[in-house]
């Protein structure tokens, strides 16, 4: 199939950037979206142009490295699918596809479609962990965990940290990301001792990083490749309210 892409090109953080149109010919419908960009880049290199920079690594939907706005939708038109798992068969011959980087103050553009997501790491640093230095652990069966809690914790823990939630949120909020970690650890008995400090510290770090606030619109969960539910934000809010109350 032949398509046209309009891609955000920005040579570096200080460049203003613009959309540039490219024709991509003879793409197999079985190619993935990133493979389509690979093909385009091969051509750009041989033509002496600068290839398009984009982040990607595992290409099987789990590392969370890839991500771009495709026609204004984070990770593109397929639900519960990362960009690397999106295939060209979901587009039509002759389509024009707009590709932009994640847009958020906390995710500054590095080059083209590559953004800096270290703000997510700082949120985790603030409290997204259970303090359990190596060697201090009791036997794994010392504390049984109800299956329902373990399963719910797992669901929340499947977040891949790709940033689509932030990219899609009209407020540029990272609440879904933070809420997923707060829920994952807060649902487990091992996470209880730090439950209050965790939520306070993570929210503070999130605010400091320049993410916006949540207005419960649900855009985030719609584009989340792992389907992290919006309800987790309610859980975070409840934890936060209690933690502030007790402080």
């Amino acid at each position, binding site marked *: 199939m032949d398509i046209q892409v309009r891609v955000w090109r920005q040579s570096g953080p200080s460049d203003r950037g613009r959309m540039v149109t490219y024709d991509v010919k003879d793409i197999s419908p079985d190619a993935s979206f990133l493979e389509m960009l690979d093909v385009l880049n091969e051509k750009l290199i041989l033509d002496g142009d600068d290839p398009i920079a984009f982040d*990607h690594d*595992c290409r*099987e939907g789990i590392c969370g490295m890839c991500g771009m706005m495709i026609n204004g939708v984070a990770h593109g038109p397929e639900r519960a699918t990362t960009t690397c798992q999106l295939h060209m068969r979901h587009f039509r011959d002759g389509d024009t596809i707009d590709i932009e980087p994640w847009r958020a103050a906390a995710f500054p553009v590095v080059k083209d479609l590559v953004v800096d997501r270290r703000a997510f790491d700082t949120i985790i640093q603030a409290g997204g962990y259970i303090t359990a230095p190596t060697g201090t*652990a009791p036997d794994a069966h010392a504390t049984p965990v109800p299956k329902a809690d373990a399963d719910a914790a797992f669901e929340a823990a499947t977040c891949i940290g790709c940033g689509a939630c932030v990219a899609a949120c009209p407020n540029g909020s990272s609440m879904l990301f933070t809420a997923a970690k707060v829920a994952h650890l807060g649902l487990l008995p091992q996470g209880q001792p730090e439950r209050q400090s965790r939520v306070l510290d993570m929210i503070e770090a999130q605010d400091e990083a320049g993410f916006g606030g949540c207005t419960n619109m649900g855009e985030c969960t719609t584009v989340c490749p792992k389907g992290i539910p919006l309800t987790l934000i309610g859980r975070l809010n409840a934890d936060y309210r209690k933690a502030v109350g007790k402080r």
Partner: protein
Amino acid sequence: MDLWNLGDPIRDTAAPDGPIETRWERRRFAAKLVNPANRRKLTVIVVGTGLAGGSAAATLAEAGYRVRSYCYQDSPRRAHSIAAQGGINAAKNYRNDGDSIHRLFYDTVKGGDFRARESNVYRLAQVSVNIIDQCVAQGVPFAREYGGLLDNRSFGGTQVSRTFYARGQTGQQLLLGAYQAMERQIGLGNIEMNARHEMLELIVVDGRARGIVVRDLVTGEITTDFADAVVLASGGYGNVFFLSTNAKGCNVTATWRAHRKGALFANPCYTQIHPTCIPESGTHQSKLTLMSESLRNDGRVWVPLAAGDQRAPGEIPEHERDYYLERIYPSFGNLVPRDIASRAAKNVCDEGRGVGPGGLGVYLDFADAIGRLGRPAVEAKYGNLFEMYQRITGEDPYQVPMRIYPAVHYTMGGLWVDYDLQSTIPGLFVIGEANFSDHGANRLGASALMQGLADGYFVLPNTINNYLADGPFPAVDATTPEVVAARTGVEDRLNRLLAVDGDRTVDSFHRELGHLMWEYCGMERTEEGLTKAIGLIRGLRDEFWARVKVPGTGEQLNQNLEKAGRVADFFELAELMCIDALHRRESAGGHFRAESQTPDGEALRQDDEFGYVAAWEFGDRPTLHQEQLDFEYVQPSTRSYK
């Protein structure tokens, strides 16, 4: 012999003798310790943030060392350990099914086709139980039963149920546990994290590993970093095949650069090829995706009986199908180990009976299972895998059989290390998939996660003390001649890559190299093929340095320059892999030499001649150092699955 030299044999002098059960305990007691107050004065560089590197960095920082971590991704959480699906083994014996440390040890040595060190594997089995405790304490949400206790599943090559798992995302959950422990230490200022930095050279001063040369992938700046010890946790080299289940960025550069500086590279030819991957769909293919081994519990593998049969699978009647695994291996059927299943698939495809584009695929058919169990039951068991298959191929596996084909998955070889996980360069430690230590010639399922975390959480933090106790070592700075040389070497090499300005892209070379390796150093290797491959690799490498086109400059984010450096190292590694495969005139685990097989086509080991680890020293002609493997506790036998 004209391809390599034979050097002196080597021994692992760090492992204690005596009863295997107490070797680790005795080693820990004999190892020197570092006073907590002195640990602050000692710096350790850790390259890579996967299960091994992440857990090591966190644990060393908790112990009080100053740690500086590096990864090429944008965050330590992206390391490819995250993609591991199945689970992690541990000899907990929570099932009361006869499991024990000794049985895990035995299974692992046997699974590795008797090409691993007993001492290391025993220790791995011992610390496996601590890993589960540690991970649960960190909040890893393992699957649980209704009683609230941990669930287990079975995996290939064992008769007990000892695999702990978190749905099909065990690697992700374990890595996030290590990542969170690491982020906590970063927040406390004990680890300095350098994401989007790639190690391009090892700095060796006075015979000790003292630092690395890194490139900031965003600005292109080349910097040097110094420490009292360097830990490489940079993963495996499966991407030498271009198409593999590895992440696109996985590379051999860190370990290869260390190898060039004197670290021995052991068993490079041992490659694990996973039988159930989604086949290539065309020349655009950039990577291969694994479908969990568990599918073979209910799926039946078949190809048409007649070569060149182009009919749709549904139109091929039952009596014109060949369920070849069930036919050849009646007692294990579709559940034979990975190496056997992979080779059988290759054989039927070589006979022209493969299906799908290019005839490189076999059917994995669930029609019987759906008929027997009903669609809802199959959906409950494999729903997410079926979805993933459909997402990638656009075909509905409930309606038409899946097409699968083997793909490169894991590399057992790596830098040679002793019992302390120290390479032949003092102060250079190598952990996880990057070393060669525990899996012999073939790795069992769910053992990679075990080894990575064992090395990072429990082994390295204990053994590195013994080395660091002699530190801090004399200061090194940017003007030290060895540092200047290392740095200049890196800069020259990058400039050379940029200066070629030829007419072929890096990917086109990588793809061609991968084809070559798959053809001649893949599932079946022959003397003739390997000899030919070495010539072809050398030719292609020369062409690479004459015709490659790397756009842009070195002073910016330049993903093609990154790739070019990695591919250049893959060329050198590829040659060594072929030499290693050529010299090992036996079949063992993931290494199958057509010349060494039983009359019915099974792998035939030559224990007397090749019962050793092949540790290669870098040189124009590599030098082979043999480490003889002694088996005191497990007697080598022939694996049979018929």
